[in-house]
Structure formats: C-alpha cells, structure tokens
C-alpha cells in the first residue's frame, strides 16, 4: 500500500533528516513508527501526504509515485488518506459540523448525504451536542475526536496518526488508541507515529524504529526499544 524506496531527505543546506529509508506497509496492517523527537517521524508522514518531496528515492502510495503526482492526482491521493495530527489541524473558522461536512464536500458528496451522515458521525464520537461550536470551544480530547471523525468520514484507505496523543491526558489518550484499534479492526491500514512507549508496547503490532533518520529496527510484533 505504502512503500519507501531508498528515501533520503536533506533540508538545505545540509541537515539530513531521513537517510536511505526502505520499508513497505501492506494493506490492512497496523504499523507504529517510533523514535525520539526529531528522529524524522513527521517528515515521513509529510512525504506520504506529498507535503515534502524526497531529496532522493521514491515514496509510493497504491503503486503511484507520490513525488511525481501533482494537482488533481495529488489531491486524489490525499483524499484516500485520513490524517490525525498532534495539533489536530482542524478548520478554526468552521464549526464542528462544518469541519466534517467540508471533507465530504471535498470528496464531492451530495448535500443530502452530508446532511444525513454528519450528525450520525458526530453522534458516534460524542460531539452531536457541540455541532455548532467552533474548534477553539472544544477541549483537547474533543478536538482530537473531531479530527478522527473528519479522518474517517470519507472511508479512507489509510489512516495516518502523527503523534495523535501528544497533547492529551491519559484518559483521552486511551480513547484515541481504542478508536485507532477499532479502525484497524474494520480492515483499514493504520500508521501510528509516536514516541509513547506505553502505547506501543500495549498494541503489540509491527513497530518500525527510527533513530537519527535511519530505520534501526522493523519487527512484526515489536516493542518500544530506544
């Protein structure tokens, strides 16, 4: 599904963030990418979303070279990826309802479908009563739940969570991880980038460990070892 082929990323003038990265994530897998802060995890996520281009090597999504995709092709790839981020990346000027409705509009869904689906999704994540609130009026946990709802509403092929629990308390962290497991159980590919040892060890899934921009470990049922 996602393939990194000898990917190196150097930020000018000479900061090497990723060095000759090679790995593949298969459809339906749950992969944790772990490493200290600054190890290069977020750059990996940006490369998958086409927000950065590799200095050398290639990143493939469903067989397509992302760094060669532009315009409508790149937008199409991004629509197939549900993103969950540490800073939530919600649309601050839109309400809870509109945040979810917007991604459905992006996908080209009809108004009738949006009107019927969004309240259901908000009900599931427990934000139905806050549908007219703006993101800044929600707690951190609520904002992250909204981000998850937004990531899932279009049924993406892959869900990428980049430090999704970084700003959350233990209760909300547990909630988010539980939701990610549920998403995986429904057959989706999940990529979790984190530096939370406890989460990774509890999951008992595949773990790719990055240190100083290099993959130092890739284990099928891995643990957080740094």
């Amino acid at each position, binding site marked *: 599904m996602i393939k990194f082929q000898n990917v190196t990323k150097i930020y000018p003038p000479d900061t090497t963030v990723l060095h000759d990265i090679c790995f593949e994530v298969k459809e339906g897998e749950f992969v944790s990418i772990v490493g200290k802060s600054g190890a290069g995890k977020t750059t990996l996520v940006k490369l998958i*979303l*086409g*927000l950065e281009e590799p200095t050398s090597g290639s990143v493939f999504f469903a067989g397509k070279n992302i760094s060669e995709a532009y*315009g*409508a092709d790149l*937008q*199409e*790839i*991004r*629509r197939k*990826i549900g*993103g969950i981020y540490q800073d939530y*990346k*919600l*649309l*601050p*000027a839109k309400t809870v309802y509109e945040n979810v409705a*917007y*991604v459905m*509009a*992006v*996908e*080209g869904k*009809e*108004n009738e479908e949006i009107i019927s689906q969004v309240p259901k999704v908000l009900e599931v994540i427990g934000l139905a009563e806050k549908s007219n609130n703006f993101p800044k009026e929600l707690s951190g946990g609520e904002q992250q739940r909204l981000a998850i709802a*937004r990531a899932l509403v279009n049924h993406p092929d892959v869900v990428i969570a980049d430090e999704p629990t970084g700003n959350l308390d233990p209760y909300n962290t547990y909630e988010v991880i539980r939701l990610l497991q549920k998403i995986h159980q429904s057959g989706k590919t999940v990529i979790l980038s984190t530096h939370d040892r406890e989460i990774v060890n509890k999951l008992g899934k595949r773990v790719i460990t990055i240190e100083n921009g290099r993959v130092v470990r890739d284990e099928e049922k891995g643990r957080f070892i740094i």
Partner: protein
Amino acid sequence: MLTNLKRVFHFAFIDFYRNKGMSVAAIFVLTITMLLVTGLFFMRGVSNFLVETIQNKIDIAAYFKADTEEKDILTVKEEILKDSPDIKSIKYVSREEALNDFIEKHKDNNTFLKSLTEVGENPFLASLNIITNGSTAQYEQVSNTLQKDEYDTFIEKVDFSEKKGTIEKIFSITSNINKFGLILGAVLVLVAVSVVFNTIKLIIESSKDEIATMKIVGASTWLIKAPFIIQGAIFGAIAFTTCLLVTLAVTYFLSPGLSVIMPGFILFEYFILNLWMIILIQLGFGVGLGIASSFIVVRKYLKV
C-alpha cells in the same frame, strides 16, 4: 458543478460574515482607494475646465489701419481660416462696433465720454479678435499669417507679440499642471493599490493554516481559492456601492458652492455626464482589485 458553485458561494458568505472585523477593514480600505481614484478623476475635470477657461481668455487681436476697407479685413480673415481651419473663433469688429462697445461699457463714466468728445472723431480701429484651439503652435501660425508682407499696408499692430510671453507662460503652467497631475495621480493610485493588496494579504494570511489544512484533506485548488476570490468581490461590491453613494452626495452638496468659485463648472452635472466612466473606474478599482488581490495572495499559499 452547480452544487460546487453553491458551496463556494456559501463558504465565501459565511467567512465574510464570521470575519466581520476584517471584512469591514477591507471594505474601508477599498472605499478609500476608490474615493481617491474618483477624486483624481474629478480633479482632472476641474483642471481641464480651468485650463480651457484660461485658454479661452487668451486671444490675438489684429488692429487695422483707419483707412483699411472692410473687404480687405475680411480677406485677411479668410486667409487665417484657410491656414488654420481648426481655429476656435475669429470675430471681425468694425470701427463703429468698437466705438459703440466702448460707449456702452463706459456709459456711466462721464470722464471717458467727455474725452471721446474732445478727440472729435472715432479713435478706434477695426480689428479681428482670434481665439485659437489653445496650442502655442497655432498662435504662431496665426501670427505668421498676420505678419505677411502683403498685409503690412492694412495692419496697424498685432497684439500677439505683446502677449506672447504671457501666453507661453500660461501654456507651460497648464501643461505642467497636467503632467504633474498625471504623475501624482499615478503615484497615488500605486500607493492605494499596494495598500489594498496588503490589506487583503493580511486577511488571507490569517487563514494560512486553514488553507494548509484544506490542502492536506485533498481539497481541489478551485474549492480553496474560489471562496477567497468571491470574498474579494463582495468587499469590492460593497465598497463600490458605498463609494458611488458618497460621490453622489458629495457632488450634489458641493456643486452650488463650487459654482460660485468656478462659474460655469457644475460639479453635479459633471458627475451625471461622466456617470458611466465613474462607475467603470469604481468597479475596476473595487471589484477588480478585490478579486485580483485575493487571487494573487491565495495562489501564494497554494504552492504545494
């Protein structure tokens, strides 16, 4: 397509309403710009009127010797018209007419009338009063015709040579006023355009993160860009309406006062006569500038 169009209009109006403060700031700046440009248009109208008024007051007077026959004077008139067909006006004033004009003008002043009686005969000379289209070149041409050797026997004197310096000075001043007005106008318009552009840039810059998020979720360029461009058009449309109403009110109320200072120039009439041009200028600077600024700024943030 229609659904998408409705959506971008919906997004634009919602954003416009929610960012009231910034929307008002943008409309204010656009209105000021449009008023400035409209003001420059009116200034040009006033300056053209003044220049024309001054030019109309400058004439050439050719005085003919007392014994010159009327047919010879009319020959000179024909000659001038032949050499300078686009001349504004040329009027023959006979000796009798000149005398009558003088008497009429000074009918209440006994000293002038007494001195006329003492002279005994009509002291006035027949003349041709010429008003050109305003260029110094045409003045020269008329003067050259009048100074031809064949007319030496008829013409007593030509007033042009005496006024030449003044005329040239006036033309130089009016031409400089036009040049200066044009340069000042261009500079002011440039400053205004840059202020509008930067105001809209600041507004869109506050949505920088939002644009980045829209890109990440896979929104098409059109879906991101269009609401900002429509917002720019809304700013412009409101600023245009405000500006047109202000211009209407200002010209209506200033018109009588200005007519006292500049007789013959009716500001409100000038506004009505040039209404379409003013609408075009205001629409161009309002809606056009609003749309263009939004388009350029959003494009900058879409470069991924």
